[in-house]
């Protein structure tokens, strides 16, 4: 009987110890896992904070750069506006106050001009202050009229008044060969278009 009681007592003790050990083990491993998770999350959070800081610094830097270039753009726009105003002043004129144009200015004028009558084109150009000449190109077949601008950047620029083809007339050469890119094709002997004289009237 005594032996049986002692056996039960030992068993209960062992079960208690096992439960306690199990509890301690489960708790310890649980703590360990949770702590690791906490630690990983803290690291991740720290890393994200660092990343955020870097990104915010970049945004700040970019904002500073943006402000600088906005100021730069504003300054350029002010300069441009001043230049445009000065240019308009320099380009302005009339038949009594003329200037030789740049090629760009001459083209701008021609692009906005719908006239094909050479006299009216010259009058229009001069009314805008552009010095534009009347040209007579004498050939065997007769006289052909051209416009001319003594441009500031490309010297004398001759043009046909109805097509605006560029012409480089030279005495002794055939007219059709003097037109830029020969839009009418090359000259033929039957054309009788050899240039004998070029008269420019300003």
């Amino acid at each position, binding site marked *: 009987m005594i032996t049986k009681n002692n056996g039960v*007592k030992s068993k209960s003790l062992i079960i208690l110890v096992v439960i306690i050990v199990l*509890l301690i083990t489960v708790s310890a491993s649980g703590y360990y896992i949770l702590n690791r998770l906490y630690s990983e999350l803290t690291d991740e959070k720290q890393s*994200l904070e660092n990343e955020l800081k870097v990104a*915010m610094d970049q945004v700040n830097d970019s904002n500073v750069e943006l402000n600088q*270039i906005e100021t730069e753009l504003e300054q350029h726009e002010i300069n*441009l506006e001043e230049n445009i105003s000065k240019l308009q002043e320099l380009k302005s004129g009339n038949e009594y106050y003329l200037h030789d144009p740049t090629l760009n200015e001459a083209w701008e004028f021609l692009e906005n001009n719908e006239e094909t009558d*050479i006299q009216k084109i010259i009058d229009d150009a001069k009314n805008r202050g552009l010095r534009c000449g009347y040209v007579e190109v004498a050939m065997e077949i007769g006289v052909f009229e051209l416009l001319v601008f003594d441009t500031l950047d490309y010297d004398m620029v001759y043009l046909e008044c109805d097509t605006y083809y560029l012409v480089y007339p030279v005495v002794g050469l055939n007219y059709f060969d003097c037109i830029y890119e020969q839009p009418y094709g090359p000259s033929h002997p039957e054309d009788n278009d050899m240039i004998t004289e070029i008269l420019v009237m300003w």
Partner: protein
Amino acid sequence: MNKNKKITVIGAIIIISLSMTSVSGFHTISQSISVIEQQKKNIENDLNDVNNNLIVVNGQISTINNEINHVVEYLNENISELEKLQSCKRYEMQDPTYSDIIKFLINDKTNEKSYDYDTFNCANYAQEVNNNAESQGIRCAYVEVNLSGGIPHACIAFNIIDKGIVYYEPQTDENVNLGIGKDYWADCVVISPGYYYESDPDNIVEGFTLYW
């Protein structure tokens, strides 16, 4: 209390204590994890916002830089054109008075040149006088006159203050009363008394154009 019971109670107390400690510990750590996860999520959102903001700002920088490039390119073209226009000669023309014309024509010696149909004809005279006048600031027109014979003639014109448009024959500096239907030489050219030009059916003025 016998020894067995004592051990059981102590064991139970230990188990309960351990369980309570574990549960509260787990609860605390879980709460901390939950807080830190929330914080992490907030930071991720912030980071996302900041990155988006960065993309927007960088986009704006890129756009403005492109705009600056265009403006600078346009500005440089304008500066180049401005410099050319600032340095170029200006031509100030004036419509002359009658006495200006007389002085100019006396001083201009084009009329003294010899006429040659092939090398120095009426067009050359008119061109030379026209260009000489313009180079002196006198507004002058080159006038192309269509004659009945089919061969055109050329003379010049001035818009004289108070007198209007007056035509001149550049070969002789004579005044010309240009009119359609009249013989250019015999009827239009005003010659000195005692002189005359012969009429010619090929010299009837059919029209004329002024190139100022």
